[in-house]
Each structure stands twice: as C-alpha cells, then as structure tokens.
C-alpha cells in the first residue's frame, strides 16, 4: 500500500521511521490540491458552457452573496488548513525531539564535502555509517558557508550553519545505501557535494565500530566501499580535545573563557599568568606541561590548588596533544578580531573563476 503510494507520487522509498507519516500527510494535501485545482477550473469551464453569452449587451442579475456561502468560502479552507497544520506540527515536534538514547554523530560540512565524526570512533569523509533501528542524532555544523544535509529516503534535512549547531535525528529502518545531498546552495560545486549513508544491521555496525577502534579499516565483508574515506587518525588538536575529554579536564576547565573550578583554557597559551606566589610568567609549552604534571607547584592567583596531578595518568602523546589543543584555543575569534594573530582566510576561497 505505502509502496504503491510512493510510486504514484514519485517518492523515494521510505527508509526511516518518519517516512510513513510524512508521506501520508503528503498524499492527503496533494490529493486535495489536485482535486481542488482541477475541480475549480472545471467548474469555471462548466459555467462558461452553461452560461454562455447570448447577446453582446446581455444583462445579468446583481449578485448578492448570501452570508452562509461566504462563511463557507472561509471555513472550508480554514478548517482544512488548520487540520494540516495540526498534523504537520505534531509530526514536526516528533522530528525535532531526539530520543534520549540517540547515538550522536557530528557532521561538518565544508565546500564541498561532508565530514562525519563519531564521538568514540573514527572520522570519515562523505560516508556515514549508522545502525538500523537505533535512533541517531546528528549535530551539524559547517566550517565555511551554509550547507544543508539532506537524505531524501529518510525525509530528513537540516542546514549546516557555520559557527552554530543544528540537530536532527532519525531512525533508519532498512539496511542499504542512501544518497546524501547538499540542499543549500554553497558555491561552485554545490551539486557535487554529495555523500552516502550506509545503514547496517546493528550487529554489523557494532562490529565495524570495533574494527575501526582497533585501527582495522576493513569492513565486515572485507571490501572497502567505493569513495569511502575513513580517517584513522585525526589531527593533534582533535586528539588533544579527545584526551582532555577522556581525562576529565573539562570537569574544571572551560574553553570558552568562562571561569570554572580552574581557569579557562581560552587564550591561555602565551598569556601572562599571575601566580599566587606573587610571581608572574608567560604560559608556554613547558609551563602547560608542568601544570599538568605538578599543578600545585605553580598555582594561578585566585584559584585553589585542587587540581590533581596527572603524572603517570596520561602518556606523553596525550600530554603533547593537549598542549597542542590548548594552543589552538588562542586563535579564537576574540584574538583574531584584535588582529594580533593573522590566521589566513577563514573561509576556503572558491575554486575556479
């Protein structure tokens, strides 16, 4: 039944839980549309045939629309429209409320490709793998202009805005491959900014994820998917971010300039720090490392010496990555605004022309 309906309307197959509800409302509205458009035109033509002009100066009676008729003219569309609004709003609220147990994937658009990162897994370009029958929440952003993440089969779309996040969620129902389009015009190769979602059976997905974590970029059946790029290693910055998350630094530190239990890391690198001992020093790599390994030796003025030592609890690579990460936090918009650190173009220049 649903399949026939979709054929009729040229709709793509429905591969998420949203599809049925969306398509039914679609059918409802479009049927009324076609019936009323054809019907109204037909009535107009019928009136022409029925009330053809007989002589050039034929007279007609004056029209006095009865109140009931006018009321009908208002009420029929109004009731239908409000009904549609109610249905669509209910569905929309559902589409906008990710279930609590949804699995998160971060999506970043850039001219002209999509990048996906799994919080506890690999990053990949252009190919998103998700398990079937599990809700997935996408947190979408962009690093240059506005894009829009669109999977027709899921009936799901959300703009990717630079500097902010949008969220959508879906629950895929059928394993398979589905096309991702960029639906918001974003420059030269907008039409080539495509990708694919691979929906896997949950067990396969878990297996795949585990393989990824082991650094084994092979798929379940051993064949890499054409066009799939899995990035086994992320940049130092991301590793640092990751390590800091894992080690729990963010329980006390923020990266947005807000004071918490400890000082914010924003703009920390290269800053002059007043210590409680009365001395002052510039926060360089060495100082950052010392602060992690032996925090109480140099306590920042105005804070309690509560930070535990991480000596032995993090390896050298992690420490280095965290330092790198803290360094990147300096090139935050505040500083780039003051022009003290030119960082090259914020947006990728458009190719061609």
């Amino acid at each position, binding site marked *: 039944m649903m399949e026939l309906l979709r054929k009729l309307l040229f709709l793509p197959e429905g591969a998420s839980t949203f599809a049925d509800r969306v398509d039914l409302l679609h059918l409802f509205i479009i049927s009324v549309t076609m019936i009323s458009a054809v019907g109204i035109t037909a009535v107009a033509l019928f009136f022409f045939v029925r009330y053809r002009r007989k002589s050039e100066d034929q007279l007609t009676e004056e029209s006095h629309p009865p109140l009931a008729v006018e009321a009908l003219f208002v009420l029929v569309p109004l009731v239908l429209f409000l009904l549609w609004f109610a249905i669509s709003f209910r569905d929309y609220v559902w589409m906008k409320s990710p279930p609590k147990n949804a699995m998160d994937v971060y999506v970043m658009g850039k001219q002209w490709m999509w990048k996906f990162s799994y919080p506890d897994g690999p990053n990949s370009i252009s190919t998103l793998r998700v398990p079937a029958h599990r809700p997935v929440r996408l947190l979408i952003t962009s690093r240059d202009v506005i894009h829009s993440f669109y999977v027709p089969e899921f009936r799901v779309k959300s703009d990717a805005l630079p500097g902010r996040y949008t969220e959508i969620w879906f629950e895929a129902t059928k394993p398979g491959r589905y096309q991702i389009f960029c639906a918001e015009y974003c420059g030269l190769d907008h039409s080539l900014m495509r990708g694919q979602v691979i929906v896997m059976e949950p067990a396969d997905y878990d297996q795949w994820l585990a393989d990824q974590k082991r650094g084994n970029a092979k798929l379940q059946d051993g064949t890499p998917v054409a066009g799939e790029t899995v990035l086994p290693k992320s940049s130092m910055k991301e590793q640092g971010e990751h390590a800091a998350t894992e080690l729990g630094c963010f329980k006390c530190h923020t990266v947005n300039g807000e004071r918490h239990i400890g000082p914010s890391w924003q703009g920390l690198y290269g800053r002059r720090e007043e210590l409680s001992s009365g001395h002052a020093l510039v926060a360089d790599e060495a100082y950052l490392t010392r602060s992690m390994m032996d925090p109480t030796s140099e306590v920042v003025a105005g804070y309690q010496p509560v930070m535990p030592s991480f000596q032995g609890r993090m390896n050298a690579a992690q420490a280095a990555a965290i330092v790198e990460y803290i360094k990147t936090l300096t090139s935050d918009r505040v500083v780039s605004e003051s*022009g003290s650190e030119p960082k090259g173009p914020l947006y990728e220049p458009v190719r061609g022309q």
Partner: protein
Amino acid sequence: MHTQREGQPYLADHFGSLESQIDASRLGMWMFLGTEVLLFGPLFTAYALYRFLYPAAFQAASHHLDIAYGTINTLILITSSLTVAMAVHFAKVGKNKRVVAMIVLSLLAGFAFLGIKSVEYAHKFHEGALPGKYYALEAVKEPGASLFFAIYFLATGVHALHVIIGMSVLVWIGWRAARNTISPEYYVPVELGGMYWHLVDLIWIFLYPLLYLI
C-alpha cells in the same frame, strides 16, 4: 503642463483644491518618513539580536564610547529641531526673513554635529575600534565587541548621510524663503523639509541611548 489656475498660483492641475494638494503632500511625506524608519529597521534588528547574544561585550564596548560626544550631539540636534520648528512657525506667519535666519542656525547645528561626529570617528580609527576585520581595540576583547562597532559605524554612518541630505533640504527651503516663493498660504515645502529634519533628530534620539548609554 501644470497650467496654473487663476488666482491659485500653487495649485497643480490635477488637484481639485489646494487643500487636497497639501493633504497629498503631507501624506506622501509621512509615508516617505515611514520608509526611512524602516530603512533603519535592519540596523535596529541587528542591534537587538547581537545585544541579546553578547550583552557583556555590548556593555563593555558601549562604555568605551565617549559619552560626552554623544550627549553634546544630542543637545545639538534637539536644538536644531527647535530652530527648524521655529522656521516652520515663521513661514506660517509669513516672516520669511526669520525663516532664513532659523534655517541658517539649523545648518550651523548640522555642521557642528558632523564636526563632532568626525572627531569621534577619527578617534575610533586611531584606537582601532573598528568593525569586523579591522577591529584592533585591546581594551574590549569579548566576542561580539566588533559587532558593536560594526553597528555603531553603520548606524551613525547612515544617520550622518541623512544629516547631510537633511542639510541640503534645509538649504533648498532657506533659498525658497529668501526668494519669497513661499507664503502663509502655501508653506508646504518648509513644513515637509522640516519634517525630514525632525526625523533625523528622531533617529538620533534612539541611537543615543542604544549606543552610548547602555
């Protein structure tokens, strides 16, 4: 084309009476002023939004402006509004010489306003309190501070442009008064030109607290 009807030197051909012609001009002017208000709409919107998003930065940036400049300019504009209102009043009672005098005073006020504004601009340029990528003000570093200055420059810039246009209009009506082509019976040009000037004042009445006082 506009054959002037007997005894009605100001009446255009397609109007039934001078009264309706004046009505039309006034209504047209009010509508034009309405479009001017809406022209500033996007700037007020940008202000509202970014102040909502970055209240602290806006406060800090606002405190960085020199309130003295803003206040003096407010007083100047209010005074010029008075002189323009008086110009209309004198036109209504047929004292065209005084109209000219009032217009001259208003023009002086306009120049004073622009003068102070340019001193203030120069100061901002010097400090680097500039919009967007030119922002180099060390004192205020919160995110969003450069937006305050972007809005500051856009809003005061568009406003200054209106001051200049308004002054040109004042010159024109002063000229008409000097040549006695207006009379108590038909002083609509002075009235409309005056309304334009008041609008310029009006916009400033809002820009002053939004930019300088918060």
